[in-house]
């Protein structure tokens, strides 16, 4: 192994090791970058490498940081976050929960199905994972427990439904992926619709089958009332405003009327109107939303900034070439390489979360995929169809990273709001079937790329 390779591998290992100290991810990334710039500099002096790293070169971090600020695609990010937090405060989700429960009242597993359905609606309205998981847990966990649901099923349903938002558009993850790879946000949003809905449908089918095979695990409530027209009307009243908002935001992007940035701004505005309509809006709420937007945006961008330093130094050490030559040198054939890459991402997802993987690993993989020479039919309309498809595979694989222990953010959020007698191992046990479902969905996408590409290819007239 030559020195550059050793340095690249050492840099990755140092990063992972430092992560587990609990120092914030952003600073671990930035600090490791600076540390290895120093090591690269010394290696140039004493070990005959030519990384060219030194104090001056590190100044590129500022130019790169500026390009993060000067970026009209990423403006959508805080706006979607604003919209999500505002919806969370607007009380619409609670109303949804109460009324939809009546609709599914007599079906075994009906409550769990309701949770998943609301998870899908929340996902399509914003997809702030933390907010969705917490919201679903607070609204449904105690009810499910009272109805006699098995604890793992209840927990697994909440965690997985709450995580759907990262895949179902609008999704801040897809916005960032589009930015990183120079793809169209619209193509990615549209590409994700069918995979996202498919995954949601798979959850629901799994829950219904479980209810049917093991009535004890997902019972129907004893006092369930028959569905009345009045109950149905109630559900409609609760669902309609939210659906309208989703329709306006996503519809305007898909129809090409608005850019994702404009749609995100309109969505934030619409969520505010919805909160007013529900009489939940106040100056205090606005301040909470602003503060929440500030915090969430900032911690994502802090990781951006740290990662830009890390990626710069990694590139100068020769990381790009190393990974590219390693992957293209694998004796597996194109699909074998894709399986291998997805396997690695799945494993990385145990420890890292989507931001680091998207910012550091994904850009390294794009040229590899383009070089595979896969001939995926995008009907001539989708630019880079094989890359769009691949990104969706990665997105699906990253979806699992929220649920896989030990580092799974959905698990942490859920644990945070569970009663103290619920153990982390209960949660782990609960999410296993849902992780398997996600892997199954991933497999379907690998062999049916049209599930991803059909919509973006046909959406433009």
């Amino acid at each position, binding site marked *: 192994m030559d020195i550059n390779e050793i340095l690249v591998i050492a840099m990755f290992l140092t990063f992972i090791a430092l992560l587990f100290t609990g120092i914030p991810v952003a600073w671990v990334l930035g600090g490791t970058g600076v540390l290895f710039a120093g090591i690269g500099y010394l290696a140039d002096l004493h070990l005959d490498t*030519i990384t*060219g790293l030194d104090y*001056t*070169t590190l*100044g*590129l971090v500022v*130019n*790169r940081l*500026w*390009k993060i600020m*000067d970026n*009209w*695609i990423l403006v959508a990010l805080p706006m979607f976050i604003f919209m999500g937090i505002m919806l969370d405060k607007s009380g619409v989700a609670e109303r949804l929960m109460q009324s939809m429960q009546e609709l599914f009242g007599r079906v075994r597993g009906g409550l769990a199905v309701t949770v998943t359905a609301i998870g899908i609606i929340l996902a399509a309205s914003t997809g702030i994972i933390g907010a969705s998981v917490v919201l679903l847990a607070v609204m449904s966990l105690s009810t499910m427990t009272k109805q006699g649901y098995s604890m793992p099923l209840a927990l697994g349903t909440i965690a997985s439904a709450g995580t759907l938002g990262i895949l179902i558009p609008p999704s801040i993850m897809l916005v960032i992926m*589009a930015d990183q790879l*120079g*793809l*169209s*946000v*619209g193509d990615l949003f549209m590409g994700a619709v069918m995979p996202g809905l498919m995954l949601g449908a798979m959850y629901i089918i799994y829950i219904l089958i479980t209810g049917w095979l093991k009535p004890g695990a997902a019972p129907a409530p004893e006092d369930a009332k028959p569905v009345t027209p009045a109950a149905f009307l109630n559900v409609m009243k609760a669902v309609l405003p939210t659906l309208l908002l989703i329709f306006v935001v996503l519809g305007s*992007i898909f129809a*090409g*009327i*608005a*850019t*994702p*940035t404009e749609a995100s701004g309109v969505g934030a505005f619409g969520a505010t109107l919805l909160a007013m309509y529900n009489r939940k809006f106040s100056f205090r709420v606005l301040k909470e939303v602003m503060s929440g937007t500030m915090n969430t945006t900032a911690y994502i961008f802090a990781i951006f900034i740290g990662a830009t330093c890390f990626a*710069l130094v990694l*590139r100068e050490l020769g990381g*790009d070439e190393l990974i590219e030559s390693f992957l293209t040198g694998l004796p597996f054939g194109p699909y074998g390489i894709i399986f291998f890459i997805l396997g690695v991402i799945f494993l990385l997802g145990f420890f890292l979360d989507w931001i680091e993987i998207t910012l550091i690993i994904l850009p390294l993989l794009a040229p590899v995929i383009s070089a595979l020479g896969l001939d995926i039919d995008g009907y*001539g*309309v989708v*630019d880079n169809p094989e890359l769009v498809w691949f990104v969706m595979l990665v997105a699906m694989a990253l979806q699992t990273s929220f649920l896989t222990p030990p580092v799974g953010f959905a698990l942490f959020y859920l644990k945070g709001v569970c009663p103290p007698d619920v153990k982390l191992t209960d949660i782990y046990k609960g999410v296993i079937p849902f992780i398997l479902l996600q892997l199954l969905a991933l497999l379907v996408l690998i062999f049916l790329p049209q599930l991803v590409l059909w919509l973006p290819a046909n959406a*433009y007239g």
Partner: protein
Amino acid sequence: GDKLLLKTPVAFGTHLPALGSPIKWVSEQLQVMSDGDIKMKIYEPGKLVSPQEILDAVSSGKVNSGYSTAGYWQGKLPAAALFSAVPFGPEAGEYMAWMYYGNGLNLYQEMYDNGGYNVKVIPCAIISPETSGWFSKPIEKPEDLQGLNMRFFGLGASVMEKLGVGTVQMPGGEIFGALEKGAIDATEFSQPAIDQRLGLHKIVKYNYFPGWHQQATVFELLVNKDTWKEMSESKQAIVENTCKASMTNAIAEGEAMQFPVMEQAKQNGVEIRYWNQTMLDTFKTKWDEVVEEKTAADPFFKKVWDDMSTFRQGYDLWEANAFLPRVQKD
């Protein structure tokens, strides 16, 4: 001799013919001609630093060289666009005549020196006319432009602004997405063979010629001045002459590859249009206004403009007599 590594971020992907391919050719030739003493490592756009940051990065020594076109710096140096492409300006032959045998190159360097940028500039590619834009509807009269948002490069942008167009500058990679999503309604980018790579024809069908705003475009290699001074005379000559050879190479490549692509575009339903005289006259009138404003606003812009104009007035005598008329469009 001493080995030299030129780390060179580029403003255009090297997969783009004529825009990005020349610098790749330069890097290969440098290696061969210097017996491996000069190595140029190319970084695709944004890998190390984004196109708009190249000047800053080279000047501050964060990288020791970079490949771009001066028009990108017009927010920093108003005169820069004159060294990139000039509306109703010289064609390639005349442009090179002014640069190499007039005062062009000296003024070019002077601009960076006066601006406090620590760079040595070397023209390193030149390409023939660009198309003047892709629109979703025919543009027959000046009012048809009113209210459009358009990606437009360099000085031509100021002309379009005068016609009620909102202009933005964005790198090639961002254009398709912006157009597709309606952030912009129209765009110009480069020559037919390059525009085709961006897939613009999938969204907008009216492709207008001639490129009044860019009859010829010069690309530059920027080298950090400290690096340049440390280079031996032989290395400097190798770099300068490789770039000079690249000028020939780029224009030959650019001239050769347009017509097959235009033929293909026609078959894909693209409407190839030539501006009517009213439109061309309008562009020219507005350009004259822009020149008046820019020369008044920036003394150095005036200095370069005056020099170039004097040269061109002299050249007119030759040009009017030396060349056959262009083939009439049928």
